[in-house]
């Protein structure tokens, strides 16, 4: 790695307060994108092997410096009131549906869950985890997960979510469900 380029990338990441796309870095540095990406990956690996107090993560389509998660307990003492209130089961369910089915209309979420979900959708929008894109004309708004959701979960994009099939209940559980549906038959 050329020390000069490493210096520039570190300087930019130091002052950035949101993930910086590799293409932006490539433009600023006037270098091919692939070269910059290789440099970023090298930096990220380097920080881990050197055991630094910060790490470089690829999230929400860009790169951003974060504190080393090992230091979380001390940072929590340093930064007070960091912890968010936990999401309810219903909120997590809606979040999962949006993440896997985006863009999705409010009515479709309600249809999948079988219960009215407007309140939960509002809460998640308020927490900045999902966003609505207004459609033209009378078509309903469609919801997608936000960049801050991707940052909070450490995902580069929804394509990095595990396959939905991995979460399907096993055949034994399904048989149990089926048995409960047909008492006495």
């Amino acid at each position, binding site marked *: 790695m050329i020390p000069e380029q490493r210096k520039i990338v570190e300087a930019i990441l130091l002052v950035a307060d949101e993930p910086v796309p590799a293409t932006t870095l490539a433009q600023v540095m006037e270098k091919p994108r692939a070269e910059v990406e290789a440099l970023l990956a090298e930096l990220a690996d380097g920080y881990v092997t050197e055991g630094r107090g910060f790490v470089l993560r690829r999230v929400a389509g860009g790169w951003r410096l974060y504190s080393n998660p090992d230091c979380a307990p001390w940072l929590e003492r340093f930064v007070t009131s960091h912890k968010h209130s936990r999401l309810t089961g219903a909120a997590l369910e809606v*979040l999962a549906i949006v993440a896997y089915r985006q863009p999705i209309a409010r009515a479709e979420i309600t249809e999948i869950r079988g219960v009215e979900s407007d309140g939960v959708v509002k809460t998640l929008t308020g927490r900045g985890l999902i966003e609505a894109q207004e459609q033209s004309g009378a078509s309903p708004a469609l919801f997608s997960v936000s960049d801050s959701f991707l940052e909070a979960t450490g*995902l580069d994009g929804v394509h990095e979510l595990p396959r939905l099939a991995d979460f399907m209940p096993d055949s034994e559980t399904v048989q149990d469900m089926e048995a409960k549906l047909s008492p006495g038959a």
Partner: protein
Amino acid sequence: MAHEVKLEVFEGPIDLLLHLITRRRVDIYEVSLATITEDYLAAVATAEGLNLDAATGFLVVAATLLELKSARLLPSVSDESVRSELLEERDFLLARLVECATYREAGMWISNELILGERFFGRAGGSIDLEELGLVERPTLASRTSETLAGLTPDMLAAAAAHALAPAIERGLDISHLAPITASVKDAIYQVAGLLSSRSPASFAYLSGGATNRIEVIVRFLALLELYKGGAVELEQSARFGDIVVSWTGEVKVSEVISEAEEYSLVPGGPG
């Protein structure tokens, strides 16, 4: 434990009753569902606390009995079709339960990632202020104020205040610019039916093609709903926000739909 029922034809747990009925050992015609329900409610009222599992179990069995009985009372529906309908309903319900369980699990995964993510504190970058360093130009408050208020005299302010505080001049409500609504649902039914007679299936975009404004498109759509309600057309929309495909069933006459739609008076002051 299952709820016990006491009837002339049967005495014992309610799920056994359902079992016997499906095996045709007991005729559901002889079973008074009203008595069962009343006894159950009485039992619940005297019992201490409600066992949710038992209550749910009772509801499922009672609902099934109700469905079986209503099917038995309607001679046109055969037992076989009722059973296959019940099975179909059950498959559908099971599929939905599995889907919900899947998303619940996926939600747990996301929750875990969110908790792990809380251990990372993002570099906030805010320690240098680009404006402060003079790298980004920032208009000062003074320069902004002087620009906005340039050339303003106390007299101009007084004139503006007098204008704003003066009583508003009363004017009659001018509605001459409003075009009266001339489209009627009944006319639209004839138009849509006419178009469909030469081309079916047709898209809604085609059927509302001649409409000149939004109201007319809405009225065409209402007409379509009337035709659908009357069984004259079949509707299909394969994609979200996609075009609606309309096909003529040929089972109902347009005049019948019109007479059914007679009381439709959504268009205020329209002709007809």
